[in-house]
C-alpha cells in the first residue's frame, strides 16, 4: 500500500467539465449521513456507490465526493489510495480476483492464474482490450476450504482447476450469485447510462438485476 502522489503542475480535474455524479448518486450518498456521526465516515460507502455507478473512481469523482461530504479532496485521495478495492482507472465489466494466499497456493492456485493470463492474454492488474475482463490478484478471499478459489465480480468460484477456466470464462452468467442481492451499496438504478463512462456499468447492472 504505497503512497499515491500527483504532479501539482498537472491539471487532473477540469473545473469546467460537467459533473460526473448524478443527483441520484449524490442523494444515495447523503442517505448514509444519519448512520454516522461525521460526514467523512460516509466516504467508504460513497466510494462503493460511485465505483458501482461508473466502474471506477475518477479524479473528478473524488473532487465531487469531497464536495458532497464537505471534506478536502486530498482527504478522499488519502483514503482511496490506501484500499486495494477502489480503482482510479477503468475496470473491465467483470473483474476476476484470484486468491494467492497460502491455502490456494498449496492447492494449485498459481496454475489457475497462469491459465487465466493465457486465456485472457493479459497480465495481473490489466484489462482485456474489449473491456470485458480485468484480472487482479488479492490476498485471502476466505474461501480456503474451497481452494483454489477466485471471484468474478461478486461470485465466488470454488475449487477451480486450470482445465475449468475456459468453460468458466465462456459462461455468460459466471458472475451471478445464488442469493438475493441487497442494493444498499449499489448506485441508484435510475441513473442515466451516459455518465457511466464507457457504458460499463449499466450492462453489469442489468446482468445483476436479471
Amino acid at each position, binding site marked *: *500500500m*504505497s*503512497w499515491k502522489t500527483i504532479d501539482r503542475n498537472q491539471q487532473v480535474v477540469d473545473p469546467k467539465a460537467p459533473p460526473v455524479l448524478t443527483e441520484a448518486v449524490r442523494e444515495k450518498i447523503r442517505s448514509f449521513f444519519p*448512520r*454516522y*456521526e*461525521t460526514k*467523512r*465516515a*460516509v*466516504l*467508504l*460507502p460513497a*466510494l*462503493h456507490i460511485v465505483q458501482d455507478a461508473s466502474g471506477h473512481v475518477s479524479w473528478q469523482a473524488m473532487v465531487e465526493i469531497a464536495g458532497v*461530504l464537505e*471534506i478536502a479532496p486530498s*482527504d478522499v485521495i*488519502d*483514503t482511496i*489510495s*490506501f*484500499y*486495494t*478495492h*477502489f480503482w482510479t482507472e477503468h475496470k473491465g465489466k467483470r473483474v476476476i*480476483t484470484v486468491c*494467492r*494466499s*497460502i*491455502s490456494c*497456493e*498449496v*492447492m494449485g492456485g498459481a496454475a489457475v492464474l497462469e491459465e487465466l493470463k493465457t486465456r485472457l492474454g493479459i497480465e495481473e492488474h490489466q484489462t482485456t482490450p474489449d473491456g470485458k475482463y480485468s484480472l487482479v490478484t*488479492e*490476498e*485471502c*478471499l*476466505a*474461501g*480456503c*476450504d*474451497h*481452494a483454489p478459489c477466485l*471471484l468474478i*465480480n*461478486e*461470485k*465466488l468460484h470454488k475449487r477451480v482447476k486450470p482445465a475449468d477456466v475456459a468453460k468458466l470464462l465462456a459462461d455468460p452468467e459466471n458472475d451471478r*450469485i*445464488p*442469493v*438475493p*442481492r*441487497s442494493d*444498499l*451499496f449499489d448506485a441508484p438504478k435510475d441513473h442515466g447510462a451516459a455518465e457511466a463512462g464507457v457504458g460499463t456499468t449499466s450492462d453489469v447492472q442489468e446482468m445483476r438485476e436479471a
Partner: protein
Amino acid sequence: MASFEPVLLRNLGVENSRSVRVYESRGGYQAARKALKMTPDEVVEEVKKANLRGRGGAGFPAGVKWTFLPKDRTRTLLCVNADESEPPTFNNRVLMESDPHQLIEGTIIAAYATRAQIAYVYMRVEFHEQFHILQRAIDEAYAAGYLGEKIFGTDYCLECYVHRGAGAYVCGEETGLIESLEGKRGWPRIKPPFPAVEGLFRRPTVVNNVETLCCVPHIIERGANWFTSIGPPHSTGPKLFCISGPVNRPGCYESPMTITVRELIEREDMGGGMLKGKRVKAVLPGGASMGVLTAAELDMKMDFEDPRKYGLLGLGTAAAVVVDESVDLRGVLRNLTRFYGTESCGQCTQCREGTAWMYKIATRIAMDAGRLEDLDIILETSRNMGMMPGLSICGLPDGATYPIETLIKKFRGELEAAIRAQPPDRAERVLKVLN
C-alpha cells in the same frame, strides 16, 4: 468427545437457516429476550463468569473488555469485526453464511450489555454473498422489531448497520477498523487510549469478533456454568476450527478446545486425513500469523495456552493449513512474506521496511538465488520488528515475524539444503533480473 453437539454451527445445513422464521423455530432470539429482562451489568457479569475469550486472535476475555468502558459514559458504540482477512481463516464466513441471525442476536445482547445505541458490522468487501445474506437478515430483524426502536417491547433501541471495507488486512485490527469506519486510511492508532475509552468518533467503543458475539446468546441461554464446563479451564466454550490444504475434508468444524492439530487433520468428522495419502510436512495451525509446526509437533493442543509451548504466538484464529511434503518451503516463505509485505499499513518504519525486505529476500531464495546468510538476515530483520520489543503501533509485525521465524528455525536444514543445491549460474542470472 465425539458426542459433542455443535452449538455455534447447530443451524448449519438446516434448510432455510438464514431466515428469521427458521432461526426462531429452533430457539432463536430467546436469549436476547432473556438478556433484555436482565440488567446490562448482569449480562456483563454472566459473560465474564463464562470466561469467553475473544475468538478474533488475541484471546482477550470479552466480558472484561466490556468492563473497561467508563462508568459515566453517555454514548457507546459497538463494532462487530467481520473483516476476516487472516489467511486461511473462514469461520466467520461460515457463521454469517449459515446463521446470520445468530450474529444479530449476539450483537443485540452485547450492545445491550454495553449500553450501545449503534452497532456497526465492519465487513470485508470480498464477502459479497455474505453481505447480501447478512443485510437481508438485518432487514428481517428490523421488520420483526428485533432491531430499531423498542426492541422486544422494551425501552431499548439499537440501530445496526453494515459497513463494507475495501480490501485491507490491517482493518481487522480494532483501531485500524475504527479509523477505516471513520472514512480514513486503516491506520491503527497508538494505544492508550484504548477504544473502550476513546474509540469510534472518540466515543467509548467495543470491538468484538463475529465468533465471539455468536457465543454470547448461548452463554445467556444456558448459563456461564454450562459454558465453562466445555473445554479446559483457560479455554472455555465451543470453538470453530478451520482446516484447509491437502486434506480430504477441508472445512470448518466445531469442537471444545481439547483437540490436537493431529485430530483436526486426521479425524473422520474433521479433516478426514491427508489427500491421496500425502504426508504432512508443516502446519500453520492458527492462521498464518501464529507460526509453523513441524510434522513432529502435531500433538499440540488447539487451545489458548498450549501453542506458546511450541514457540507460536498463540491460538490465533484456529485455522490450520497443511503443507504437504511435495511443497517447496521456499515458496511458502515467499507467499507468507509477500502477504505481510503487501498488507503492512506503512505507518511504522520497521514494519513497512522489514516486511518488504523479508519479501525481497524470500523472493530471491525462492528463485534459486538465495545465499546461506540470507536466512540470518531475515531473522535479524524480524527481531527488529513488532510489539514484543515495543516498536510498533499494532500487532501486525508480530504476526509477520512469527511464521517466518518459526519456519526458518524449524526447517533451517531443508532451506539450507535447497540453497546449497541451487545451480550457481542460475543464481547469477536471477540476481541480474532482480537487481
